[in-house]
């Protein structure tokens, strides 16, 4: 299915800051975060625990009130609706009902059946009983749980619970889905199936998904764009191929890790980053034939992202860097990004292709 990404920004945060005050101490969870999520994309925010991801996603629907900065979702400035005090006013609650949210621990009501859980947001919206049950069953069918409508959450597996959580989040026909570590409590197999479901919904419904995670695999599997968070700031952000094109990008090297040490002295180790058109060219064999050199591949991580091959490869050429200037130039001419891995010449490591 084709990507539904447009250039319109559906979630924008600017200068988002959140400071927690407790017992006289101040903890800055968000430190001026600017986030731009395009309509129809899956945007992943990755970072370690304590990096501020959770605060960020909770600020987007104002479950947490930012200390300063603005949040705009679908053209509506939510921070302006917030009103004063901890309670959410009617307008903010209406805006929230148009933003779906799924949680790490599913947060399903154990006292309600699966169907009643999915109906809950519709009850809040004031939908009639008949319409509620029609919609709930339709959504359960969409997430593949039509036969579990009358079950209680406790009778479901983790993956099934999260499917119910997703169906529930979609009940209000949201344009935007926030996913708070939705797969972190699941095993790898289930994680893949839930991510696949999110991806399908993204494509089928044109749903914009903002997810936070600490697992690089999640970003790798479904994200069109990603941001790396550290200590309350966004360190890097962009589409996956933009990130790959950024020399020295931490996210790119984490997404496509390549390892391998030089096999001896008098060797040149290169990291090649493929993205866009260049990935389809058989550059390595061209290089080998053109310059008649033997190339060993030390490590590689190649994946198909958005229909294009992207990835990184670490190769080794015989001879010192000075001997290989011409082949390296050849590779750069092919539009590849080359990083020379050489401790003696650290200045060259971050040299980019463009």
């Amino acid at each position: 299915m084709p990507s539904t990404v447009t250039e319109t920004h559906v979630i924008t945060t600017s200068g988002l800051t959140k400071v927690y005050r407790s017992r006289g101490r101040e903890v800055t969870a968000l430190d001026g975060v600017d986030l731009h999520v395009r309509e129809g994309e899956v945007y992943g925010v990755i970072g370690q625990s304590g990096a501020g991801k959770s605060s960020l996603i909770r600020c987007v629907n104002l479950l947490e009130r930012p200390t300063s900065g603005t949040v705009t979702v679908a053209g509506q400035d939510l921070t302006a609706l917030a009103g004063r005090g901890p309670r959410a006013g009617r307008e903010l609650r209406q805006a929230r009902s148009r933003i779906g949210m799924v949680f790490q621990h599913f947060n399903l009501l154990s006292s309600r059946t699966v169907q009643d859980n999915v109906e809950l947001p519709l009850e809040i919206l004031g939908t009639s009983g008949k319409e509620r049950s029609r919609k709930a069953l339709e959504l359960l069918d969409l997430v593949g749980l039509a036969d579990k409508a009358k079950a209680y959450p406790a009778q479901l597996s983790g993956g099934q619970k999260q499917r119910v959580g997703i169906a529930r989040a979609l009940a209000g026909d949201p344009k935007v889905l926030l996913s708070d570590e939705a797969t972190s409590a699941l095993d790898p197999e289930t994680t893949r199936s839930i991510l696949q479901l999110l991806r399908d919904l993204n494509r089928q419904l044109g749903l914009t998904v903002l997810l936070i995670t600490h697992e690089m695999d999640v970003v790798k599997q479904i994200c069109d764009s990603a941001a790396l968070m550290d200590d309350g700031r966004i360190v890097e952000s962009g589409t996956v191929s933009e990130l790959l094109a950024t020399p020295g990008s931490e996210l790119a090297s984490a997404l496509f890790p390549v390892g391998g040490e030089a096999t001896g002295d008098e060797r040149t180790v290169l990291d090649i980053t493929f993205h866009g058109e260049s990935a389809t060219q058989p550059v390595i064999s061209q290089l080998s034939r053109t310059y008649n050199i033997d190339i060993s591949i030390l490590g590689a991580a190649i994946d198909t992202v958005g229909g294009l091959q992207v990835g990184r490869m670490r190769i080794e050429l015989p001879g010192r860097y000075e001997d290989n200037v011409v082949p390296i130039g050849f590779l750069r001419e092919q539009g590849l990004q080359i990083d020379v891995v050489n401790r003696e010449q650290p200045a060259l490591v971050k040299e980019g292709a463009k």
Partner: protein
Amino acid sequence: MTWTQMQPLLEQACIETLIMVGWSTLIAVAGGLPLGVLLVLTDRGGLLQNTLVSKVIGQIVNIGRSMPFIILMVALTSFTRWVTGTSIGSEAAIVPLAISGIPFFARLVETAVREVDHGLVEAVQSMGGNTWTIVRKVLVPEALPSLIASTTTTVIALIGYSAMAGAVGGGGLGDFAVRYGYQRFDSELMWITVAILAVVISVIQFAGDFAARSLHRRGGRSGPSPRLRLLRAKEPAGADVGKVA
């Protein structure tokens, strides 16, 4: 005293206890439930955080809880008269029983409601639910098994308190045991009354536990009963794998 003499008196005492405890429990639940919920909501970090209201309610509940029932009953005499028009008899005893039951139940409600996972509150907030929706659709239904257990505890406590209702001529089983059994040295009668009380309390506790457990089982946190588990173990191993995760 022979059984034929005893029987009508015992029946009368049972009815009196039923009336006193029944009504006071109803009032205690009706008053204690909102109070307990309010204690949670107004507490620090609560949805309706309000230090003043929280402190005031907390203090009232504490005073109500710490007052010995017999003293409360005497202290409330004029209030009781204002409410029921009399300060003696079963009806008059309902007033102090209910008033001591409210803070008792409120504290139990507070504990039960606090147990509800905050994630559920957050989920309903994210759907655009207001505080009232959260109370109605999350806090109370999710705490229901605990609330039923709390009601059982309250009923039993009120049966205990009602023994003191004799002081205002309230009658009831406890008072009967004191007057006929203890003060007239009729130990046989006293033991019969004690046995009746023990049976009544056991039945109430059993019924309460059963109700709480059946709700809980629906929620499934306590899992299937041992017998069901044995049956399930015979299913093919693969059938249960998903449920563990």
